[in-house]
């Protein structure tokens, strides 16, 4: 069943799935992670997500009116951008931060290029990187889980980068999200539920997420510790934004390669870059930069992985 639902190069067969239907399904699949975020970080997480989503919708509406094009706020893509952007923020940010980020995401990340389908980068990540470069002090202050009075706590990856001991965090805690981090990235369980919806529905294929996660794991296993082949690969998979990025952001239809072969290359590239940034880079986390860099490489990948036209050598 999977095989005839993969997004591939033309020719296509018509089916009832429309853009807005797919987009709204993605929104639904993000809801478990949102609920988990609210449970872990309190209502702040909800306000941040609502602020980002509303700002994204408003910006989309303004652009629609200003450019006199069709108003596209109901196709769900702006909602996804808003939610994904909020998922990449700590719950403690002042509320104007997600608003500015969402405006930037939609305006500069998407509409400037001509709207949905034309953007070369994932809009939510564009917004996140913009906020990260502009206000790093807000973007790297995290609260610990279940401490609603905002006790700051570093993310596991940041602790690893600073060489602090990590033994009080078990894999199980990482899987359930009981650690500091961004709103949507902490609870792996909830993210996997959402990803399963998309995979079963056939709206995303396994190629990018699987190769992405596998490559990161292998690379951090080999180079992640002092000696070779001693890295803690399970920790690397479960911490940071890898799962969120691999299933929900690296699978963006617009900014990723069309063919299965291209998607495999894309996933491997993302995995390599993420591992390199995590191990040797200046930032503790590299998922957003890795995906953006591979987004930039997508036209090139598409060019070299064109499907052979039937009947032509």
């Amino acid at each position, binding site marked *: 069943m999977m095989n005839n639902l993969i997004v591939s190069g033309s020719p296509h067969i018509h089916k009832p799935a429309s853009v807005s239907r797919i987009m709204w399904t993605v929104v639904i699949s993000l809801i478990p992670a949102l609920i988990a975020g609210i449970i872990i970080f309190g209502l702040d997480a909800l306000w941040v997500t609502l602020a980002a989503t509303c700002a994204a919708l408003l910006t989309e509406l303004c652009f629609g009116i200003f450019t006199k094009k069709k108003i596209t706020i109901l196709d769900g893509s702006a909602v996804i951008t808003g939610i994904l952007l909020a998922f990449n923020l700590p719950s403690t940010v002042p509320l104007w931060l997600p608003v500015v980020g969402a405006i930037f995401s939609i305006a*500069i990340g998407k509409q400037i290029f001509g709207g949905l389908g034309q953007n070369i980068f994932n809009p939510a990540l564009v917004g996140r990187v913009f906020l990260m470069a502009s*206000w790093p002090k807000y973007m790297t202050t995290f609260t610990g889980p279940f401490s609603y009075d905002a006790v700051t706590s570093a993310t596991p990856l940041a602790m690893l980068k600073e060489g602090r001991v990590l033994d009080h965090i078990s894999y199980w805690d990482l899987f359930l999200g009981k650690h500091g981090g961004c709103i949507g990235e902490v609870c792996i369980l909830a993210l996997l539920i959402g990803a399963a919806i998309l995979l079963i529905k056939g709206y995303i294929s396994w190629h990018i997420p699987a190769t992405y996660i596998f490559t990161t794991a292998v690379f951090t296993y080999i180079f992640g510790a002092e000696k070779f082949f001693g890295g803690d690969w399970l920790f690397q998979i479960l911490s940071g934004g890898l799962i969120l990025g691999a299933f929900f952001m690296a699978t963006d239809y617009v900014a990723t390669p069309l063919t299965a072969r291209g998607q495999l290359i894309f996933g491997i590239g993302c995995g390599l870059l993420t591992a390199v940034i995590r191990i040797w880079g200046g930032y503790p986390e590299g998922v957003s930069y890795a995906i953006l860099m591979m987004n930039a490489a997508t036209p090139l990948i598409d060019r070299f992985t064109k499907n052979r036209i039937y009947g032509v050598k």
Partner: protein
Amino acid sequence: MKNSVKEFTKGLIRENPTFVLVLGLCPTLAVSVSVANAIGMGIAATFVLLGSSLIISLVRNLIPDKIRIPCYIVIIATFVTIIELCMKAYSPALNRSLGIYVPLIVVNCIVLGRAEAFACKNNLGRSFFDGLGMGVGFTLALILISAVREFLGSGQILGVTLIKGFEPIFVFGMPSGALLVIGLLLGLFNLLKDKKA
């Protein structure tokens, strides 16, 4: 006279070196962090443009065609050296903040471009007004970009804080911010041009 006015005004908007010809982006990206830098750079480039356009249009019939580029470079480099020494003497602070970009005016494509495209084909008067117009156009473009960048990136214009409590957007002080601002302004210019046409 009418002709000279036309040669002057075309550099301001219609053939603006930064936004329409898209020349000389390297110094534009680098020095547009603050308005003070932009004004200094604009004046230096205008001086070099004016001087080199004048001399090149005077000697244009003496220069053999095959070695014209080296000749232009020698003339341009002379004026760059003059402005650099003046800047070092009278405004060392500005010289420090512009740094390597002052000597790099030698290879600024606006200067070389005007020498190659205009001064070597036109008489003294027209070349003078062309150089002046291009220089002023470049300066205005630099001031526009740097005003946006300085305001957004540090909340100030010419070192004066405008809005209290505004959290500066660091990214606009970085090279990526320069590319963003230039790209958006370029788009805006094209939009206005399309509207007019």
